[in-house]
């Protein structure tokens, strides 16, 4: 297992994309958060300080007005963990260096999860920094509400990265996995939700299924005031942070399990 971890760690840090993705994520987060915080004063009159700080830290994702952009970039690191193996035939070199497939898979999962969590936390701290500079935080920086949002962001990004890794391991095609990770959470789930609502107009409860859309459910871990809005708009009650988090966790677990089984049974 240590051999697999050492291999994966060195694999990660000897490739340019790792640096680009991490540097790019942190830089964009810094620029975006500064702009958002510097222009937050109009909403400070409507929302309380805790909500404003959460919105700055999550770049609007806590209000559901934008997807959690950092998760999408960090998720690419998860995709690349297996995508690079299959895009360039590296998997054969990897498995002749570390033939224990379970160890290879576990090492990739642990590395992806750890990196995603640390980066997501880093992004949140950048958001807090921006808020501290521009926003009248009134002590919200250390409030339980803000830190619950941050915990949600970190968990969501970690699960997102793991889903990216599992997707790449299943489809064994980097481009396909990138496309899926960009499309499924943001586009395909929205379309499915719309279809469910349309179907439910005939009097069925199909719209109730929309709460199980995994990435939408997972976003409840950091989305705050939207529950009653969603109920009004779509006619169903979303899960709360815990329930939504469990739905995404379960989805990720199934995806990872499928990927692990396929990885150990398929030809390299």
């Amino acid at each position, binding site marked *: 297992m240590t*051999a*697999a971890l*050492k*291999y994966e760690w*060195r*694999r990660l840090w*000897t*490739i*340019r994309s790792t640096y680009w993705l991490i540097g790019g994520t942190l830089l964009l987060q810094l620029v975006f958060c500064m702009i958002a915080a510097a222009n937050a004063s109009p909403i400070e009159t409507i929302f309380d300080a805790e909500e404003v700080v959460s919105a700055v830290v999550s770049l609007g994702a806590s209000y559901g007005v934008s997807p959690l952009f950092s998760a999408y970039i960090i998720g690419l690191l998860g995709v690349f963990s297996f995508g*690079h193996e299959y895009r*360039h*035939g*590296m*998997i*054969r*070199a990897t*498995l*002749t*260096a*570390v*033939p*224990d497939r379970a160890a290879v898979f576990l090492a990739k999962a642990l590395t992806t999860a750890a990196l995603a969590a640390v980066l997501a936390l880093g992004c949140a701290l950048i958001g807090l920094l921006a808020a501290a500079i521009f926003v009248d935080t009134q002590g919200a920086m250390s409030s339980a509400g803000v830190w619950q949002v941050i915990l949600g962001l970190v968990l969501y990004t970690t699960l997102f990265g793991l889903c990216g890794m599992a997707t790449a391991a299943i489809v064994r095609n980097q481009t396909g996995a990138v496309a899926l990770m960009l499309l499924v959470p943001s586009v395909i789930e929205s379309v499915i939700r719309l279809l469910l609502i349309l179907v439910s107009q005939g009097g069925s409860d199909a719209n109730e299924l929309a709460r199980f859309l995994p990435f939408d459910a997972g976003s409840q871990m950091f989305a705050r005031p939207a529950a009653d809005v969603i109920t009004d708009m779509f006619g169903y009650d979303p899960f709360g942070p815990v329930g939504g988090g469990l739905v995404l966790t379960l989805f990720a677990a199934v995806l990872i399990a499928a990927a692990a089984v396929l990885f150990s*049974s*398929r*030809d*390299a």
Partner: protein
Amino acid sequence: MAVIEARSLSKAYGGKPAVVDLSFTVQPGSVTGFLGPNGSGKSTTMRLMLGLDNGAGVTTFDGTTFRDLTAPMRQVGALLEAKPFHPTRKARNHLRMLAVANNVPDSRVDEVLDLVGLSSVTTNKPKNFSLGMGQRLGIAAALLGDPHTLILDEPSNGLDPQGINWLRNLLKQLASQGRSIFVSSHLLSEMALLADQLVVIGRGHLITSGPVADFISASARTSVIVRTPDMTTLGPALAGRGAHVVTAADGSYVVTGVSQEQVGDIAHEVRARLHELVTQHATLEEAFLEATGMSQEFIGYEPPGSR
């Protein structure tokens, strides 16, 4: 030093058998050539041996399967077809990554880069490498752990004549140190110079295995050239022993199915005069074409008049 034992290797892709019940042994201290026509299952066999493909059968290296080896690259070095490296990971970093998983010191990375002649491009990206340089990087990876066993799939691919010569001498030297070397190639002239032992397959089946010399002498293409004024008496006597006689253009006779000694003895019995009696060995290529003639996967079309 390790004995490679492949037992009953089998693999089918989508119901089409690629390798069928293939067993052979590779002994230390020798270069064992792995021959077969295109699509005969050589690469599949090597992937099965390394556990990269899931199939039936088992391959052991001194009793242990590849998957159960600890620090496998220190025991079995492998070079497989295609270029298994990331195009923008520098050559030295690629090898350091493999090294760290096998407890090979980083200093060994520069040693093998030097050994394969890539010491001037250690910080270059493989995407700019020629086919031959890529192949050298693959060979460097195989040698990284100073393994007692090497499994090399078409290692001379893309190498220039000097490179092929270098590789041949390197493999012979490694074999003379007592290592087990299993190497596939479609270059028969190269194999004739390199290998001591052969494993020949066709359509996934074992055709023969054993010393190169035995393979060649067993070939029907190995014949005895006879020059005699008394073929009228010698001919029927030879035919009676199961030999086949063909008249050559220069008036000599090409006899197959019996040895040089047998021809001499038969001539003595029937009091036929012999002006010349010599064995003409088949080349490895002739022996190979004969052995695998019926088991080609892909048969090309020969334009009329090409013979």
